[in-house]
């Protein structure tokens, strides 16, 4: 069977994966790099549960051919989790009961991180807009928006 080899930076580490040509970043992360935090929800760009960062920008891993990340920087939820601790977004999601089944959570946190990296003190409307491509079937979103707003407030905003 044919294969392609792709080298990129994955959570800060130089990584080279050999995969079949049509392999998506999502499959590569989950099945080749054994990083399973990133979830497959629809594989068609409709749910956002596979959201990761490519060069800091939120990206749907299910619609990204692995070949596209050659030489790029990919960050997954594993990559923002400090050893033995939590990222402020993770802490806020935990405290706010923002994860029920937990399946959309990794994508939600990555989408929120992309927002806060660009805009440390977004309004609630800006938070909602940034997460509008990420579906959650359990929570009704309120605790998720609350959690991101908590972090925005810690950043010195949120009430603008």
């Amino acid at each position, binding site marked *: *069977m044919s294969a392609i080899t792709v080298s990129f930076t994955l959570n800060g580490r130089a990584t080279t994966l050999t995969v*079949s040509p*049509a*392999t998506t970043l999502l*499959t590569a992360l*989950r*099945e080749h790099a054994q990083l*399973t*935090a*990133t*979830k*497959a*929800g*629809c*594989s*068609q760009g*409709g*749910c956002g*549960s596979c959201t990761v960062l490519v060069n800091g920008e939120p990206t749907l891993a299910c619609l990204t051919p692995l070949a596209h990340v050659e030489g790029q920087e990919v960050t*997954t*939820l*594993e990559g923002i*989790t400090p050893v033995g601790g*939590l990222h402020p977004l*993770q*802490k806020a*999601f*935990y*405290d706010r*009961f*923002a*994860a029920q*089944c*937990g*399946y*959309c*959570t*990794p994508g939600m*946190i990555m989408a929120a991180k992309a927002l806060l990296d660009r805009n440390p003190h977004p309004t609630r409307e800006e938070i909602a807009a940034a997460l509008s491509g990420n*579906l*959650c*079937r*359990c929570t009704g979103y309120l605790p998720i928006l609350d959690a991101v707003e908590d972090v925005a407030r810690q950043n010195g905003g949120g009430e603008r």
Partner: protein
Amino acid sequence: MKQLGIVGQSVHRSDGLGHVTGRTTFIDDISYPHMLYISMVRSPVARGKIRSIDTSKAEAFPGVATVITAKDVPNNLYTILCLIGIGPNDEPVLAEDEVMYEGEPICAVVAESEEIAREAASLVKLDIEELEPVLDVEYALRPEAPKIKKWGTNTFTYDGKDHCQIRFGDVERGFAEADEIVTGTYQLSPIEHAPIETHVCVAKPEPDGRLTVHTNTQALYFTLDNTAIILKMPSNRIRMIGGTVGGGFGGKVDVLTEPITCIAALKTGRPVKWRWTREEETRCSSTRAAVKIEMTDGVMRDGRIVARKVRSLQDAGAYHRHSPYGAMKHMVNVVGPYTIPNVWVDVYCVYTNRQPSSAMRGFGVTEASFAVEVQMDRIAKAIGMDPWEIRLRNAYRNGDMRPFGKITEDATLIETIQAAAKLVGHELPPELAQMHSNDEGGYAAAQRATA
């Protein structure tokens, strides 16, 4: 109320840290070396006779391990409710001679990757003689409609009847006495559970001949027992592991992935994963039943509901799964939390050539509540009464007889109405504000007195 220690406190979720770090192990996160993947070939038509299935091209496709058809299934019949005495079993694991809905599983391609399995599945050639599908529940009940079930009817049989029923009081006398007759028809559409995690199952043969099965079923033992019967294996030869589910809402109780994944693992001797696509989740998993409810109420000008007659049709789809039970749950809840002295309910579980409906968050009740509560507003409108008042006056009180012969206890409908009014700043008149679920007031008492 007794003060307790840890009960009543908003402690953190025990799985919360796993969820926020992505370290919770969902079924799709489980992989084994040399694992194979399944892609299902499904019926392209809503109803038809299978003339032939040609799997040769798929089997010859590089990377395909095997193709599984009905003849590979030891006991090719789901036994969803047989453990609790509901039958007959009506759904094959894989279609044999006929297909009953678009998306019905026909054969499973097992291959080295999902990508290979998907492409090989597209090469399976089906020869199906298409038959007229029955899609409309009213049509399904008519004599001229084709009878789609092998036993010769389009309805589930309850104790010799084509429906289940409640008979309470004398509904015709109630209508005769009523000042107004209020009718309404209510229709729901098939609704998908849409958990963000689709169905996933991983089955792994063990050296001792046992099978380890990871599944996101909502009901492990139910799945274990059903799978064991289908595989004709003693249940203790299978170890079913689950307990963590990425959203269920009733959509993961139908044992749809485990038997086939196990058969694939046994046939190939390798671990096998079957992860449903989103389209399969949307179009082939069960839905909430589309229900049609016709409701006729006899109402007095003072707001008392004195009679209620309901005809309800549950669209079970092609196979019954949990619908016969849902219809009964519907039957006892379609009168609503109100005391009505004369009640007549007929609920039909009707088969159509549609993806089967089954359990979904409150099924039977959600549909009933929708009809009952819109009907309450219709009644209020018909007699010129405030929607808060019509509910408070008719609300059941503790001690009232329910139409299914159970005495009401734990009633607090009135209290929630009053609390909701307070929450939105709607002031209720003193008489209504003072009602409670243990009072002797309301029309229930008057009805008891006249009954």
